[in-house]
């Protein structure tokens, strides 16, 4: 077990290092420099370079860069809000995005589980069909189509919820975005729960439990669901990817001041530092979650750990 975690940890740190290296290389090749003013004399330029550490060899610069990144110092924004430290920008925006993402995951997981369980228990009936249709639509229709439909019906025509995000009503304005984001989660969790439960339901140990006289909710909750839910950890990674891309669009549609909309604005206005900081944060979050998922899965299901330690990966 320790060996498995160690191996995963090394791979994750290595990947994060590759990401930083990539970002650093890109920065070196970026056109233009803040100091290519022709009026500067050679001495002045040398002083500036010394001040910012640009006279150091590239390896030392890279070392400094990694050190700063690790401490959460991402430099200042160039164009979006001039000379504001990026960490300050993030401080106000990150919680909003995390909140909406978290709500979407919770809501999606809950509804998805219920749908999946209903579909599996009443397998082959109209409930099964309805749940399958919902999950096919949820997987195939992009989240921004849902966001637009919700914004039009509940935000504009019925005016139940604010059409655009307002800081005074943080919960009320986060309802529609969370629903729009969670559709994909609902769909994938429902699909997965259904197939896993069907597999467990047809297994021998459920037959044994039934013949011992366990039935009804107790059978489903204690015997079926507990075993069916183990592999659901594997769906987490694609879900997080979906949430990341989804948040960009949903934040744009509802004008939410989160990190997704910050990234879009940064790209449109060529704010390199912000783009690179956000790329780093997105990668770090993703790699971290993948690491947790892998370790969790190894803890829950020893077979995975053993097969991953084998010669064929």
């Amino acid at each position, binding site marked *: 077990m320790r060996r498995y975690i160690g191996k995963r940890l090394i791979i994750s740190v290595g990947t994060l290092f590759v990401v930083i290296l990539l970002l650093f290389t*890109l920065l070196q090749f970026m056109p233009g420099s803040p100091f290519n003013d022709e009026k500067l004399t050679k001495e002045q330029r040398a002083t500036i370079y010394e001040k910012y550490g640009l006279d150091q060899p590239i390896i030392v610069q890279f070392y400094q860069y990694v050190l700063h990144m690790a401490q959460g110092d991402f430099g200042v924004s160039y164009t979006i809000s001039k000379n504001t430290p990026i960490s300050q920008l993030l401080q106000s925006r990150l919680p909003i995005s995390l909140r909406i993402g978290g709500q979407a995951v919770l809501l999606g997981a809950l509804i998805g589980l219920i749908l999946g369980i209903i579909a599996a228990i009443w397998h082959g009936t109209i409930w099964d069909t309805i749940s399958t249709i919902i999950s096919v639509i949820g997987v195939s229709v992009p989240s921004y189509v849902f966001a637009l439909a919700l914004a039009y019906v509940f935000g504009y025509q019925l005016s139940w919820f604010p059409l655009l995000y307002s800081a005074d009503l943080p919960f009320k304005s986060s309802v529609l975005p969370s629903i729009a984001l969670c559709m994909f989660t609902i769909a994938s969790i429902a699909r997965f729960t259904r197939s896993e439960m069907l597999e467990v339901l047809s297994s021998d140990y459920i037959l044994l439990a039934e013949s011992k006289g366990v039935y009804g909710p107790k059978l489903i909750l204690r015997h079926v669901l507990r075993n069916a839910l183990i592999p659901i950890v594997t769906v987490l990674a694609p879900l997080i990817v979906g949430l990341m891309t989804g948040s960009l669009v949903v934040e744009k549609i509802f004008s939410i001041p989160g990190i997704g909309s910050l*990234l879009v604005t940064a*790209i449109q206005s060529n704010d390199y530092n912000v783009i690179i900081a956000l790329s780093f944060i997105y990668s770090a979050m993703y*790699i971290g979650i993948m690491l947790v998922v892998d370790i969790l899965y190894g803890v829950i299901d020893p077979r995975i750990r053993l097969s991953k330690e084998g010669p064929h990966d």
Partner: protein
Amino acid sequence: MTNDLATVEFLPGDFELKGAETTKLDMNFASQRFWKDAYLRFRKNKGAVFSLITILLIILLAVFGPIVSHYTYQQQNIKETNMAPRVPGLEALGIFNGDETLKTSTGSKLKNAYIVNKETGEKSDTYYWFGSDALGRDLWTRTWTGTRVSLYIAFVAVLIDMLIGMSYGLISGYFGGRVDSVLQRFAEIINSIPTLVIVTLLMLVLKPGLMTITLALMLTGWIGMSRIARAQMLKLKEQEFVLASHTLGASNIRVIFSEILPNIISQLITNTMFSIPSAIFTEAFLSFVGLGIPEPMCSLGSLISYAFKNFTTHPYQIVPPVIVLALLMLCFNMLADGLRDAFDPKMKEM
């Protein structure tokens, strides 16, 4: 008993090969039966057949839609902006006659932008089947031009899966050992960087456009496919027919591509079909956030993004691209589901 047999002499003429005229020795008999079975199962699946027909219809419309209209996708008519849909024939029924209800602060009012003479109610001779946008461009032409982009992306996704993903996975699985280790670590690292970040960084270096999106898909799109191909290869490469082929002196390339590949192609096709909707989505998503196709070219995503700006006042502008995009995604997903069930009926219960 042995004596009896010895006295009987068999001559070639004593036997007749039953059905000798109709049956020919068929080397591919098993695989033909497989494809025929799959076809029969697929035909029974109503959802999948419906999806296939819808996709074909969308392809036809994307090819001929822009040709039959009188407009081009970039032609502007500043006098005819924000016209509601008007279709000849249907307008007599009271629908699609160019009427639109505008919500104002004083209440809603009915307006028809096609009317040239206010007293007689005479309408001009122009028709915009899906309406026109804020710059006076025909939405029918633009929607189908945008659909072409999505279909191109679908084609690219298939090509990437089949060329890069498949070969990568097959080679990695077949050779195993150190080759496999190196290739898998590389794929793992690429896979650990979110696609979003890869695309964003590409946009910094390259200009937004179709080529950049293609490149982004190339960098990330093959990983899922390579995993499936590798897993299938690991399953098959220890089997007897592979050993037999080796013994007969077949080269590695031959064993991989003409012995093993035909046995796993159905799984690979299914997986390819599943990667199409996600590729279409990636493009539409990028165009929506403004990283995709630059104006005046358009894709479904950029059309939605453009119409989104005034979708509370002119909701008809956003409807056609949204419906086409949703239909494309839905149908490719259902088609992939249908193909999976057809190739592997055991999976249906899953």
